[in-house]
């Protein structure tokens, strides 16, 4: 009995008090939602969908933290690459690359999204390498630099979205005949394909099976990488560069690899996000996604120096769960104004602040 209690105590300690509080908060919110008469199965379905949409974007934090550059506040860079990939895939479809495939068939959707993912991977990896080279020049200040580089990239791509010679009528403003739209409907491409494939529906309760499986697949790949030789080398380089150097490890290269994987995942992540939403959002939309991703992984128990897949899955669920449930509940209680947006900012920035202050105190 004593032992079991001790084990339980230890388990709770490993899980972390903050997470227990947040989890409790989440359940209280659900309860409140039920009390104000909201549709709980539908709310939970929404939580699951957002979990799937954000999963890979949050996963992008793992390689960056493990390689020592800290949470990647610059995911906007990878997101830009991912959007570019998605846009090129739309363009290819427009010019008949998918040939005679039935546009309503499942094969069409899968080929379309695979194409987008592959292109996203290619573009964002390339950007990731350059970004990694840059971060090696600003060691010690990665978090600030990556935040501002992220912002600058959003600005840079705002210009590119106006100038790049895309032709597909899905993407460009119909009247001007050039310049990309702010939101692009993906209904003719890969919009919601994974949400719908093998979807489980029980009344109002919906499980986006394929989307969740895709997220888990990417998590598994990163988990495998973490257990591989180079994954462990990269982690060592991140947590103690002097240790790594004494074992013949090229620390700068490990950081570039970590940044590149992180950026590439962000590219894939935005494709997943967009397919879940059914739209591509360009221009300033990616600006704050970095903060949300960072907040999620930190809420899941990662620190700026350590992160594991478990932190991603738990953190995304908690963070997105609270936002999804809290906002409608808050709107129900205080209907006027755009409270929801303010609340979202307060929660996500509050969590980041909390976690960063924690990270300082904890690392002796």
């Amino acid at each position, binding site marked *: 009995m004593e032992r079991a209690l001790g084990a339980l105590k230890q388990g709770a300690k490993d899980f972390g008090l903050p997470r227990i509080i947040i989890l409790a908060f989440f359940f209280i919110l659900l309860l409140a939602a039920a009390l104000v008469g909201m549709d709980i199965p539908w709310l939970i379905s929404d939580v699951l969908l957002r979990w799937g949409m954000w999963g890979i974007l949050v996963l992008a934090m793992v390689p960056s933290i493990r390689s020592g550059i800290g949470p990647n506040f610059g995911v906007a860079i990878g997101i830009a690459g991912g959007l570019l990939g998605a846009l090129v895939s739309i363009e290819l479809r427009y010019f008949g690359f998918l040939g005679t495939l039935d546009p309503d068939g499942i094969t069409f959707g899968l080929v379309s999204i695979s194409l987008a993912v592959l292109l996203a991977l290619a573009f964002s990896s390339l950007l990731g390498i350059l970004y990694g080279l840059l971060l090696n020049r600003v060691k010690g200040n990665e978090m600030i630099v990556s935040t501002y580089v992220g912002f600058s990239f959003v600005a840079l791509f705002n210009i590119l979205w106006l100038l790049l010679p895309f032709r597909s009528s899905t993407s460009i403003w119909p009247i001007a005949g050039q310049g990309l739209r702010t939101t692009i409907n993906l209904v003719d491409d890969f919009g919601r394909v994974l949400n719908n494939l093998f979807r489980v529906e029980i009344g109002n309760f919906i499980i986006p099976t394929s989307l969740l499986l895709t997220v888990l697949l990417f998590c598994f790949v990163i988990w495998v990488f973490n257990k591989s030789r180079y994954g462990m080398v990269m982690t060592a380089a991140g947590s103690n560069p002097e240790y790594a150097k004494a*074992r013949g490890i090229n620390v700068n290269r490990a950081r570039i690899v970590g940044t590149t994987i992180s950026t590439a995942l962000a590219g894939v992540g935005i494709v997943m996000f967009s397919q879940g939403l059914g739209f591509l959002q360009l221009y300033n939309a990616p600006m704050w996604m970095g903060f949300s991703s960072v907040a999620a992984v930190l809420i899941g128990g990662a620190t700026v120096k350590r992160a594991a897949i478990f932190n991603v899955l738990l953190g995304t669920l908690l963070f997105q769960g609270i936002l999804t449930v809290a906002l409608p509940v808050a709107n129900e209680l205080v209907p006027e104004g755009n409270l929801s947006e303010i609340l979202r900012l307060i929660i996500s920035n509050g969590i980041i602040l909390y976690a960063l202050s924690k990270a300082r105190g904890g690392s002796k």
Partner: protein
Amino acid sequence: MMEEQRYVLELQHISKEYSGNPVLQDVSLTVKKGQIYALMGENGAGKSTLMNILFGMPVIHSTGGFTGTIKISGEEVNFLSPHDAMEAGIGMVHQEFMLIPGFTIAENIKVGREDTLPTLPSRVFGPDLERLNRPKMNADARVALDNIGLDISEETKVAGLPVGYMQFVEIAREIDKKNIKLLVFDEPTAVLTESEADQLLKVMQSLAAKGIAIIFITHRLSEVMQVADYMTVLRDGELVASKAIADTSAVEIAELMVGRAIEKLVDDDKNTKVSTEQNEVALSVKDLYVDMPGETARGVTFEVKSGEIFGIGGLAGQGKVGIPNGLMGMFSSHGDVEIFGEKLNFTKLGNALSKGLAFVSEDRRGVGLLLEESIAHNIMFGAMTTKRDYLSNFGITKLLSAGRMNRHAKDMIKLLDIRCVGGGQRVGALSGGNQQKVCLASALTMKPRILVVSEPTRGIDIGAKKLIMEYLAHLRQEEGLTIIMISSELAELRSICDRIAIVSDGKIEDILAPDASDAQFGLAMSAAAQNSEVS
């Protein structure tokens, strides 16, 4: 009332657990004004933990606190942070350095107690905006450094300083404090050579003469006999004996610590010296220059035969530590180095490792270990990266084989007597000496052809030291391993090495046989001083 005041410190019935494991059980002791009080015990006996409790270290409070009472000058205290302890007049030189690398030596000595001058804004907004009185801080630091005889500019940055220097900076910081009543030294001499340690002991004696009480943790019995007035031995968290030094002997203390008698560091039958003169050359070093701050090597030349145990000694700052660090590529270096006839390429990172050289760094927390990872992970890591060992097939790739890693860790824990809960324990939660054993285990796991160990027994108790030295001797004898051992402790080098090189002023001053006279060693070690006197 007056009677009680005699005790600067009273610890009563102190007990402490770390997640269910008792590490201190009902320990009580009292220290008088001006007394030098030795605290002894094996690795993991609980010495540092007891001092961390006294000092209010956060690690104690974050792990559930402790039970028992602490009295300072007769008054019960409850320190919630080291700052409280400092206010109450307690200073501590920690076993693991607590210096800020980016700061200068003077800044480190003065950190938290900066001297300031009023500025215009500070007159308006209060003392937080005063500016630093750098000249005064530097001058104070100079005095403290001179007091302990450390001959280095107070404006040098701490980052990259050799560990021996860091140790002295830590000490200077503590003796610079003004209202000090009680000073704790946790293994301050572990990285110092005998003559440096002597100097430190003198500093301690003069502090004690001023009425400051000193708690002195060390594994060196001779030091205890030399300066301490009183001693307490801990074993597995329990107090086994408290005695006045006058009533005991070194042999008895050793026996109290490990529960058996220890006579010689390496028993003769465990180290039958074999002639290695005919063997091939394992390592040849010609004109090695290493740019390690504070431990610069300037043209080192020597040869080590295969199967030999080659010692490198010398005073701190003379460059002996620079040699292995240069070979391993930690600092920029050049020279002609051949490992079993193959030329070492300094520009290629990890080249020495791939040629079969394994290195145990003197800086175990900075370079030697991944503190957040488990014992098992630390042990396998080097072999995994350099030899791709401990990996097993997983589809198209290879992943860590946890089973093999854990089994091997278990063997090593047994072999080196690492005191821990199990291979899964975080290395950061081990006692200093046990961390050192993990470093050694990790190097041995790489199955090197040449093992380079820098301060291999730093902070290791006499029982474990004997175990490690005899194991090294065994490896050489049974497996023909070539060992290069860099150490500040001459006695240790002489107990096991075939030849001992003494480094002075960045060069090899002399290579001596282990049975050469003390005078010869002394001469070689102080050569630099003499040379500079002549010129």
